[in-house]
Structures are given as structure tokens and as C-alpha cells.
């Protein structure tokens, strides 16, 4: 038995998959933007990936048990950060999501994703039962819904939603009773129509998005236009795709934010169904590899951390891909590792840092 965590113990096959997906993302960003005013974005994305990798190594050095020790403080810092954003946040596109840190803007809600993984891992580990009581579930819900509410307030429906699967998946592995799970899912199923009835409390853009999702044909130039254009891009790509840099929907800018949230639509147009298969199977491979890490974790705390990361990552892919083909409304959720974006990319690599952290210590006492 080794007694020191070593870089050699990193999950290199997993990082290989991550590398391939990231590379495909950079290529598609290049294809989507090279002929536009945004040319050169792929270099910036490469830079973010580099920063993310450095962050990954750094976070893997700190024992996740130490991080879990600090969970309450991290939680409070996260909540405070979200409050700061609401008060003095930096507005962009009508939403307060960023705070300025030494010239760089930071999306605090991305950080909150990491914090909620750690906090819930700590909580579920502490409950130490295979049968979660309703009281336990209520506490989980409370822990989760406070930051969710604050992020919704920004407003950022997409990121807020992302915290929920961490709690759900955590509860699932912490031993939620099947009947509770069933009731919970039923409750969510009932909550959606309820929320629909309360849609007038939503921001106009959220109302618009929901409206558009339900009736895309009514507004071909508004938000429904985005979904339609995305579907046209995907559908017209066909089985083999139109070829790298040859997607008219993509190159002519019909696909909305084609380098970010809709990068999968751009890829689907240019690389076809084949390309989509490759990408989605890579993501599946990534998820299975993460589950493997969870299975081999030294303790449940480690498993919760890994599965928290997996939950967010998987949910991102599920929602993003569904959005691209028009199964869910436009929610502003990026495709992790592929979509352009500093905070998102940094988050993903930091999350992998946590995973490596757990893996490296599976044999360590």
C-alpha cells in the first residue's frame, strides 16, 4: 500500500476522454467563429482549458476530507458570494451573474456548484444511514434550495437547476426509499404545472422562453427562432454532416450562440449524426468512467463527491443536448468541455480535480 497520493494515480483514461472532447470543442469553436468578428476564440478557449488543468492539479493536492471538513464555511462563503452578486454584481445581458475579481469577472454560481457538491457529500456522509428519513430529505432540500433561490434571483434558471441533480443523486446513493423517490419525482412532475401557473412571476425573458418552447412556430424571429434554427442545423446535417466549416446554418450565424450553448447543433450540422454519436458516446464513456471512480472510492464521502460531479456533468449534457434538438426550452446551459466559456470550463476542470482527488486517495490511509 502506498501512503502518498501521486500524480501517477490520476485517472489517465478519463483525462484522455476529457482531452478528446475538449479538443473537439476547440475545433468546433474554431469552425464556428473563424470567419466572424469573434475569430480567435478557440485560442481563448485553449487558455481556459489550460487554466482549468492547473486548477485541477491544485485542487487534487488538497485532501477532499480537508475540503469536507470546511464544508459549512465553504457553504456560508458561497451563499455570501451569491448575495454579493445580487447587491453589487456586474450585469451582463440583463442578468447579474458576475462579480469582478481583479479585472476578471467570476461567475459565483459556477463556484456554488462545487460548493454544493462538497456540502452535500459531507451531509450525506454524516447522516450515515441507508434509509433517509423525511427529515433528512427536508434538510437536504433546504441546503440546496437556498442557493438555488439566490441563483434564480440573478436570474439564472439554468445554473440554479444544476444544483438539484446533486441533491437528487446524492439522496439516491444515500439510500432514499423508493417510495420517497417516487413521491419526490411525482412532486416534481406536479410542481412543473404549478410553476407554469406562476409563470407571471417569472422574468419576461423566462416567460418568453417557456412560451416559445410550447409554441415555437408562433414566433419565428424571437426565441422560438433559436430552437427552430438549431433544429434546422441539426436536421440538415444529415447522417454524414456537411463537413468541417461547411455548415451553412453555423457559418452564416443562424445557429444562436453557436460557439457556446448551441455548439452541439453546430457540430451536428457539420459532422452529422456520426459526429453526434461520437460525442455523446464520449460523454457516456466519461460518465461510466466517473461511476467507476465512485465505485472504487475509499469511502462514501469520496463516492458522494465523484457522483456529485457526475450528476452535474451528466445533467448538463442531458439538458443541453435536449435543448439543441428542441426537447426542452432554451435555458442557457452550456455543454461542458465543449462550449466556449471561462467560468464553465474552469468549473469542469476543478470538478475533475475533486474526482482525481478522490481517486488518488483510494489507497491512502
Amino acid at each position, binding site marked *: 500500500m502506498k501512503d502518498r497520493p501521486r500524480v501517477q494515480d490520476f485517472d489517465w483514461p478519463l483525462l484522455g476522454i476529457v482531452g478528446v472532447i475538449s479538443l473537439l470543442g476547440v475545433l468546433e469553436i474554431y469552425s464556428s467563429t473563424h470567419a466572424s468578428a469573434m475569430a480567435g476564440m478557440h485560442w481563448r478557449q485553449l487558455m481556459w482549458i489550460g487554466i482549468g488543468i492547473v486548477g485541477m492539479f491544485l485542487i487534487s493536492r488538497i485532501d477532499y*476530507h480537508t475540503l*469536507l*471538513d470546511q464544508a459549512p464555511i465553504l457553504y456560508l462563503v458561497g451563499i455570501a458570494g451569491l448575495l454579493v452578486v445580487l447587491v453589487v454584481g456586474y450585469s451582463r445581458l440583463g442578468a447579474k451573474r458576475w462579480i469582478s475579481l481583479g479585472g476578471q469577472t467570476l461567475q459565483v454560481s459556477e463556484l456554488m456548484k462545487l460548493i454544493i457538491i462538497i456540502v452535500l457529500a*459531507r451531509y450525506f*456522509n*454524516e447522516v*450515515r444511514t*441507508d434509509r433517509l428519513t423525511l427529515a433528512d430529505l427536508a434538510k437536504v432540500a433546504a441546503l440546496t434550495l437556498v442557493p438555488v433561490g439566490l441563483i434564480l434571483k440573478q436570474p439564472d434558471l439554468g445554473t440554479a437547476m444544476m444544483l438539484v441533480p446533486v441533491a437528487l*443523486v446524492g439522496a*439516491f*446513493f444515500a*439510500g432514499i426509499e423508493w417510495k420517497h423517490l417516487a413521491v419526490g419525482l411525482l412532486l416534481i412532475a406536479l410542481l412543473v404545472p404549478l410553476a407554469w401557473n406562476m409563470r407571471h412571476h417569472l422574468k419576461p425573458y423566462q416567460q418568453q422562453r417557456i412560451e416559445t418552447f410550447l409554441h415555437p412556430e408562433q414566433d*419565428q*424571429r424571437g426565441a422560438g*427562432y433559436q430552437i*427552430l*434554427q438549431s*433544429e*434546422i*442545423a*441539426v*436536421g*440538415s*446535417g*444529415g*447522417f454524414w454532416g456537411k463537413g468541417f466549416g461547411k455548415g*451553412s*446554418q453555423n457559418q*452564416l*450565424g*443562424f445557429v444562436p450562440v453557436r460557439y457556446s450553448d448551441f455548439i452541439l447543433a453546430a457540430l*451536428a450540422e457539420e459532422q*452529422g*449524426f456520426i459526429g*453526434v*454519436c461520437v460525442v*455523446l*458516446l464520449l*460523454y*457516456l464513456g466519461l*460518465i*461510466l468512467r466517473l*461511476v467507476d471512480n*465512485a*465505485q472504487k*472510492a*475509499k*469511502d*462514501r*464521502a469520496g*463516492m458522494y463527491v465523484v*457522483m456529485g460531479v*457526475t450528476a452535474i456533468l*451528466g445533467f448538463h449534457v*442531458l439538458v443541453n*443536448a*435536449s435543448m439543441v*434538438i428542441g*426537447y426542452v426550452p432554451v435555458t442557457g446551459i452550456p455543454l461542458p468541455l465543449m462550449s466556449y466559456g471561462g467560468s464553465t470550463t474552469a468549473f469542469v476542470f476543478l470538478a475533475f480535480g475533486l474526482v482525481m482527488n478522490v481517486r488518488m486517495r483510494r489507497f491512502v490511509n
Partner: protein
Amino acid sequence: MAPWNVIDQKIPQGRLALFSYISAALVIFLLVGFWKLQVVQSEHYADLADKNGIRPIAIIAPRGAMLDREGRVLVDSYPSFSILLMRDNPKLLERSLPQIEEGLGIAKEDLQQQLDAAKFEPKFLPLVVKPAASEADIEFVDSHRADLPVLELEMVQRRRYPFGEMLANTIGYVGEVSPQELEKNPDRYKPGDLVGKAGLEREYNDQIVGTDGMKRVVVNSVGKVIRTLDNIDAIPGKPIQLTIDEDLQRIADTDLADKQGAVVAMDGHTGEILAMVSRPTFDPNDFAVRIPAQEWAALNSDPNTPLLNRAIQAQLAPGSTFKIIMATAMLESKALPDDFTAFCPGQAVFYGRVFHCWQAKGHGSVDLHSGIVHSCDVFFYNVGQRLGIDKIYHYASGLGLGRRTGIDLPGEEPGLMPSEEWVQRVYHHKWYAGETISVAIGQGAVTVTPIQLARAYNAVASGGVLVQPHLLKNVTDTKDERFPLSDDTVEKVTQGMYGVINEGGGTGYALRLQNVEFSGKSGTAQLMSYQAGSKVGGRAGKLTNGWFVGYAPRRNPDIVVAAVVQGSTEHGGTTAGPVVRDIVKAYYDKKNGRLAQPSTAENIPPSRVIPVVDPEAEAQTR
């Protein structure tokens, strides 16, 4: 070890495995979704993607302006907007009609009628509902882009003819390129391009046409422009400078306004056309927007042929103006002695047929000079008989009659100068000698155009230099022809022409000008032969084409003007003479720094006693 972390629980392997299966299932679920779009409905979406696309929009280059010899704008272009009605969405169209009716003031019925008329044209071709939109119209379309997507604006360049009819036949007009022209020049033109159709617009089309630019815009599946990809600016056409003098042109046009005829004024030294008018005419501005079919048909079928440029296309009997050619031929050929004299009793018999002089009382004994001054027919019958048609042909043709002058205008007619060879070739019989007698006074088969006469007179007065008439200023490659005439001939003939205006009894005496050696010759060509005219009787039988060709000074003219007034019962000196006189006078007034004004009675020296009473003289006293 932290108190919360007690490793007493097993990893829930079963649920982790379940998680993996659910993940795989969800990926398959997503792939099915992509499969549906990319494989099952692929064609549908490929079709939609095709509709999203790049649409090239031409940026129309304005045609070059035309300036007069002093740089004044005669023709230019201005940007204008057309309002297009998109027809590809019938339901939307139907709904929009009432709003369009209200906003653009086009009756719904009219719109419906236009739509019905275009029913069988491809749906993607829009309908031009307003060819020249006002500012209010443009604003209306702009402000209703969201709720009236069926309306579109299209920028075009239109031709503007500030002087309207004044220059119409010379400048011509523009129109959409014809299918034939398109077929010939597929690279240069595209359907809908404006090209010169007549006159200078056509002649110099290649010089003044600009190079259209191109804007590529991205349009979405409903045809709305999303953004501009690139933009190649249009290169405007270059302006051209004409030899026309707007002042002289205006005077010529005013004088001829209510008549049927033509006038052409030319610089005697260079061949530069200073003025060219043909009446009746049209307004080229009518062609600049879009000429309604009825209007076009009316112009084309008008018996007064307003589209004909009579200055170069009217082939008319020259009448007595031809006598100058006869005089030149007589002196040059030496077929007759220079002092040849004929007695005019008012008529003469040649080849058993009676030929009348216009002056029934006769002119008495007539020599060349008085023959020209009084325009004695009998004198020239005799000259003609002695010369024979081929000598007449030689000199007339040498002076440019029956041949195109080569002026830089499309459609110039050659006229006709008959000869024995021509009769053989066309009619396959021998020349009737009697015909020569008619030709000698500019009747019979001979026809000329005003531009030919102007050039021929100038040649006679300049010792045989046939200048190349042209309308484009600053041309260096004009090919002047030479048909050398002896100084003696020139002196005698020009003295005659000076006498026509400046000697009492001259057929142009009423036209004389102070301080200008205004010379010329009148002509009154019968539309019917003398005999036929007598039979018809009344006004119709007496209809004539009145000519006057005048120039100044007497030798080596600065300016030569030929005018014809058709279908009058009056004499050429009366109808066409004042037109020529006014232009010549204006030319010298301008040269001397006086304002060019149409002449009035006070500029004419007091009239002397007119010794002979003839139709011309009668006209003068009126």
C-alpha cells in the same frame, strides 16, 4: 480523522450500476432524438436550411450624367426607392392588403388586380407596387417591417431629364435590357438592368453605364435580412460632355415646339452638333420610372412618330435646297458655261412634259445667281437636263447626300440619291431622263435628312470639307471628308446664298440679320406631285415640307443650321427660316456677350420694297 467521517458504510454498488444503466439509456434516448432529426427528417430540414441563406442584392450604379458643352447638366441620375410586394405568402398577403391600402394609398382593388395579373409568374418574384416611393411611403414601409413583412424597399437609380422634351430624341431614353441583348451579353447584363434604348443613351451606353455593386446579405427562412456579409460598392458611370449648347437647343426647341419637323445646328469647323430638335417628341422622364404599356403603345403607334429623331431619320425630298447642289455641280463639272442663262416663262417642256416653275408668271431671264436668289425652277430644270443624273449624283453624293453622315447616334437613315445604276439595280429599268428634271429641283426620288443638308451646305461654303457631325465633345478621331471645290465655285454659290437673304426679292429676305453674313437657301418640297396636288385640291393638295438651311458667315461657316417643318401649306422660308435665323442670331449674340434671346422683330432691319410677289414674299409681308 474528522468526527463526521466514519468509514463504516459500504459503497452502494448496486445503485451505482443502476446509475450507469440509466446514463446509457439517456444517451440512447438523446441519440434517438438526433436520429429523428438528422436521418428521418433530414430532407425537410435541409430544405429549410437552403431557404436560410445568402441573398445577393445588387447595388445599382448610377448612369453617368450628360453635360452640355458648357458643363450644364442635361441628364443625371438620382437614387429612388421602389416598394415591392412579396407574393410568397398568400395568406399573409391577403391579411396585409387593407393596411397597405391605407398606408400607401393604393386602392385594394388595384392591388388585387395587379396580383391577379401576376398570378402565373413565379411566387418569389415580387410585385413593384410603387416604382417611385415618396418619403412618406418609405417611412411607412420602414416602420411596419414587423407587421407588414410583405413590403420591401428596393433602391434603384433613376434617370432624370431636367429639360424633359427639349432633348428627348437626341438623348433618347433608357429601358430594361431586352431578352435579345441579354442573350448577346450574358456576362454584362442581368434581367432588369437599365440600358440605353435610343439616342445618346444607347450610343454611349458603354461609357456612361456604371458597374453595379453587390451586397450579400444573410436572410432567414422567412426572407428577412439578418445581416450583411460583404459589400462591394457600385462604381458610378462616368459623365460625358456633349457638344450641345443648352441655350441654342432651348431656342430651337421653343421655335419648333408646336410644329412637326426637325432642326439641327452644327459648328461649321468641327462638326460639333450645337442643337438638335425633333418634333413632335416625348418626355424621356416617362421612361425613367416605368412606362405604362398603353403609353408605350401610344408612342409607338402615333402617326406623328414622336419617337423618330427627324434630324437624322426623316428622309424627305429636299426641294429647292437641292439647287445649291445643282449650282455646285454646274460650276464644278463645267458641263455648262458659268454664265449660262435660261429664260423662265413660268414653265418649260422637257421630253414632252410640262414642268412648272413655282412662280407661274416666270422669272424672265435667269442666271445662276438670280436662279439661286429667286429659286427659279426653270433655270435648274435646264441645268439638270444638261448635267444628266449621273453628274448630279456624283456631286450630290460627293457632298454627302444619300449617305449616312456617321453621326454618333443610332438609327441614322441614309436618304436616297438616285442614279442610273440605282434604278437598274432596284427597278431593273433604264433611267427616265424626265426624272432628272424633277431631281434638279429636289423632287422625285431624291430624299435627304436634315443633318445631311447641314453638312452638305457647310461643305459647299467651306470649299469641300465634309465635317464629321458628332455629339460627343472632346473626340479627336473625327474623320472629315474632302470633296474639293474650286474657289470660284464656292464664291459664286455662296454669293447666291448670301443673296437669298440679303437681296431684295430673295426668298429669305425677311430673315436677314444685322452684322452677320447670314446666308442660306429655302426649299418647299411638295408632298404630292404638281399634277396630283391639283387633282386633290384644297389644303391637302398643297401640303409641303418647308426647308431652310442657313449658315454664317458666307464662307467658312461658324455655324450651319438645317430646319424642316413638315405638313405646312406655307413656304420653307416662312416656316423653317425663322427657326434657323433665331439659332444663328442667338449663336452670334452669345458670341458677342449678349444674352441669347429668341429673336424679335426689332432685330430685323427695316424691310425694303419687295419687287416680286410670290408665296415667299407674301409670307414675308404677313
